[in-house]
C-alpha cells in the first residue's frame, strides 16, 4: 500500500464531507438572503434586534428576518464545524500542507463571519459582493479537503505511475492541454461568479427582462433615452433601484462569459475523450492518465476519471445555462435565482477539484523530488531521477 494511505482517516474524511454538505446549504441560505433582498433586515450584529443571536424568539423570525437570521445561525454552525476540522487536521494529519490548509479554512470562515457582520453594520453593498465571492472559495477549499482526505486520493491519485506521467508529458500533449485548459476555465468560472455576485448586489432586479434577446435585440440600446424608457416601463415589487446602462452591460458580459465557459468546458470534454493510442506507440508508453489503480482495479465501468469529470462539468454548465434563462423568465424568482447560485458553486468546485487531480501528482512528485534532493544530493548527481524525465 502506498505510504500516503497511512494518512487515511475515515472519520475525519466523513466529518469533512458533512462540513462540505453543510457549507453548500449555507451557500443556499446566503443566496436566499440576497434573492429575497433581506441582507439588511437585521440592522444589528452580532445581536439580532437587541437579542443574543441564539436567543432571538422564533416568533419574530418573520419576513426577511427569517432568511437573514437563519443564515447567521447556520454560519455559526459552519464556524464550529470548521474549527473542529482545523483542530482535527492539525492534530492528526501527517501532511504539513494539509494542517495549514485546515488553518486556512478556519481563517476564511472567521473572515467570512466578520465580513458578513460588517456588511450589515457598515451598510456596504460592496462587502456583500466580497462576502459572496469568498463563500464560494471557502466551499471549494472544504471540497478540496474532502478530496485530499479521501482514500481514493491517498491510494490512487498519488500512486499514479510517475513514469506514465512522464510519458504523458512527452507523448500526450492532449492531456497537458486539457489540464491547463481546465485550470483556465476554472478561473473563468470564478470570474463569472464574481460578475454574478456584482449583479445581484446591485439590488436592481433584472437589468434585462428577456432572454435570449436583450430588450428584443442581440445587443440592447443603452443610451440615456433608452434606459429612461426601460425604467418607465419597469414595474417591480421589490428591487426598486432604477436600472442603469452599467447594469445592462454587466448582464450582457455575464451572458457572453457563460457562452465562453460552455465552449471551453465542451472543449475540455472533447480533450478528455478516451485516448486512442497511436498504432506506433508501444503499449508500455500509452499514458495512464485514467488513474486506475496499479492492481488493475479502478472505475468499474472503465470510464477514466477525466472523462467522468468532463461530462459532469459539462452537465453542470448546461443546467446552469438553463437556470440562468429560468431566472430571467421567472422574473428572478428567489428559488430559481438561488439554485443558479448553487449550481455555479458546484461548477467552480468541480473545476477546482479537477485541477487538483490533474496537477496533484505533478506537484506531489515535485515535492518528493525536493525532499529527496535535500536528503541525498549526491544520489541526484549520480544519475537522473526518474521523476525528472520529461517532467515539466
Amino acid at each position, binding site marked *: 500500500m502506498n505510504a500516503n494511505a497511512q494518512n487515511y482517516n475515515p472519520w475525519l474524511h466523513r466529518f469533512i464531507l458533512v462540513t462540505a454538505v453543510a457549507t453548500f446549504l449555507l451557500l443556499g441560505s446566503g443566496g436566499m438572503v440576497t434573492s*429575497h*433582498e*433581506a*441582507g*439588511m*433586515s*437585521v*440592522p*444589528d450584529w452580532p445581536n439580532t*434586534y*437587541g437579542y443574543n443571536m441564539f436567543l432571538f424568539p422564533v416568533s*419574530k423570525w*418573520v*419576513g*426577511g*428576518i427569517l432568511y*437573514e437570521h437563519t443564515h447567521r445561525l447556520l454560519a455559526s454552525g459552519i464556524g464550529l464545524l470548521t474549527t473542529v476540522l482545523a483542530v482535527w487536521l492539525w492534530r492528526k494529519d501527517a501532511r504539513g500542507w494539509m494542517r495549514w490548509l485546515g488553518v486556512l479554512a478556519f481563517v476564511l470562515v472567521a473572515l467570512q463571519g466578520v465580513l458578513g457582520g460588517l456588511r*450589515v453594520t457598515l*451598510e456596504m453593498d460592496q462587502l456583500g459582493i466580497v462576502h459572496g465571492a469568498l463563500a464560494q472559495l471557502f466551499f471549494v477549499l472544504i471540497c478540496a479537503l474532502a478530496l485530499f482526505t479521501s482514500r481514493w486520493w491517498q491510494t490512487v491519485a498519488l500512486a499514479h505511475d510517475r513514469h506514465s506521467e512522464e510519458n504523458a508529458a512527452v507523448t500526450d500533449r492532449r492531456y497537458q492541454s486539457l489540464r491547463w485548459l481546465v485550470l483556465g476555465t476554472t478561473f473563468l468560472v470564478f470570474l463569472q461568479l464574481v460578475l454574478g455576485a456584482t449583479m445581484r448586489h446591485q439590488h436592481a432586479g433584472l437589468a434585462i427582462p428577456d432572454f435570449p434577446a436583450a430588450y428584443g435585440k442581440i445587443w440592447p440600446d443603452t443610451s440615456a433615452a433608452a434606459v*429612461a*424608457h426601460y*425604467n*418607465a*416601463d419597469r*414595474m417591480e*415589487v*421589490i*428591487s*426598486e*433601484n432604477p436600472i442603469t446602462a452599467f447594469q445592462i452591460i454587466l448582464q450582457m458580459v455575464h451572458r457572453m462569459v457563460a457562452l465562453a465557459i460552455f465552449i471551453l468546458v465542451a472543449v475540455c470534454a472533447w480533450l478528455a475523450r478516451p485516448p486512442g493510442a497511436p498504432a506506433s506507440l508501444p503499449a508500455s508508453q500509452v499514458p495512464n492518465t485514467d488513474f486506475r489503480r496499479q492492481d488493475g482495479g479502478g472505475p468499474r465501468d472503465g470510464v477514466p476519471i477525466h472523462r467522468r469529470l468532463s461530462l459532469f462539468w459539462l452537465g453542470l454548465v448546461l443546467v446552469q445555462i438553463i437556470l440562468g434563462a429560468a431566472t430571467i423568465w421567472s422574473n428572478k424568482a428567489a428559488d430559481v435565482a438561488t439554485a443558479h447560485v448553487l449550481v455555479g458553486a458546484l461548477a467552480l468546485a468541480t473545476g477546482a477539484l479537477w485541477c487538483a487531480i490533474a496537477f496533484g501528482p505533478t506537484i506531489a512528485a515535485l515535492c518528493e523530488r525536493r525532499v529527496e534532493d535535500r536528503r541525498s544530493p549526491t544520489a541526484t548527481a549520480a544519475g537522473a531521477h526518474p521523476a525528472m524525465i520529461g517532467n515539466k
Partner: protein
Amino acid sequence: MKDAKGTPVLLLIALLAAAPAARAADIIGTITLKGTPPAEIPITPLMDNPDCAAMHKTTPTTHFYVVGPKGELADVVVSLKGVTGKSTGASAPPVVLDQKGCLYVPQILAIQTGQKLIVRNSDNCIHNVHCTPTVAGNEEHNDAQMPGGADLTYTFPKPEMFLRFKCDVHPWMFAWVSVFDSPYFSISDPEGKFVIKNVPPGKYTVEADHRKLGSKTQDVEVKDSDVTANFTFEVK
C-alpha cells in the same frame, strides 16, 4: 425763508408709500399624463406574509402611476430649480412617514434640509427603517422599529431627489423622500394639482419630477399675482 431742498425727498417717500408693495405669490398648476401607463401589479409577497395579509382584505397593488380619469397625474414633485440656501427646515413642523398595513404612507414625500422626518410604526409587526441616500452628506440609516416602538426621527442636510426609504423585513415597502434647500416645493394631489406657496417675486425655473417619467421644466416670472405652470408628461 423756508428750506426747499427736502421737499423732493419727502415727495419721493410719499410716492413710495402710496405704491402697492410687491408681494409673494403662489405658483399653481395641474399635471397631466398623456398615454396609457403600464398596469400596476399586485404586491403578492405582502399577502404571503401572515402579519401583513391580516391587515388587507384584497391584495394591494403598486402605485407607480397614480392617474385620474382625465389623465390627472399625482405624486409629481414640483420645485423651484436652483433655489438653495433658503431652507426654513430647522423651524418647520416635522413631517410624518407612517408604516401602515406593511406599506409606507405616503409613498412620495418632500421635506426641507434640516427638517425633521418622523417615521412611525403603526403596524403590529417589526419593521426596519432603512434609508439609502445617494448624495454625499446625507447619512444612510438602518434602524429597527418594533411594534408600538418609539418614532424614529431623521434629518438630511443636503438636497436630494427621491431619497429611498425601505423595509428589508418586508422588501416591497418603499417610500421616496425629496429633500429641498428651500420651502418652495409641492407634490401634485390626486387631481394633479400643485401649489408652491409664497414665492418671492422673480424669475424661476419650475421643475416637475416623476419617479418613473423623469422631469420637465418651465420658466416663469412671479410678480404680484399667482402664476400658472401646467405640465404634461407622456408615456411612450
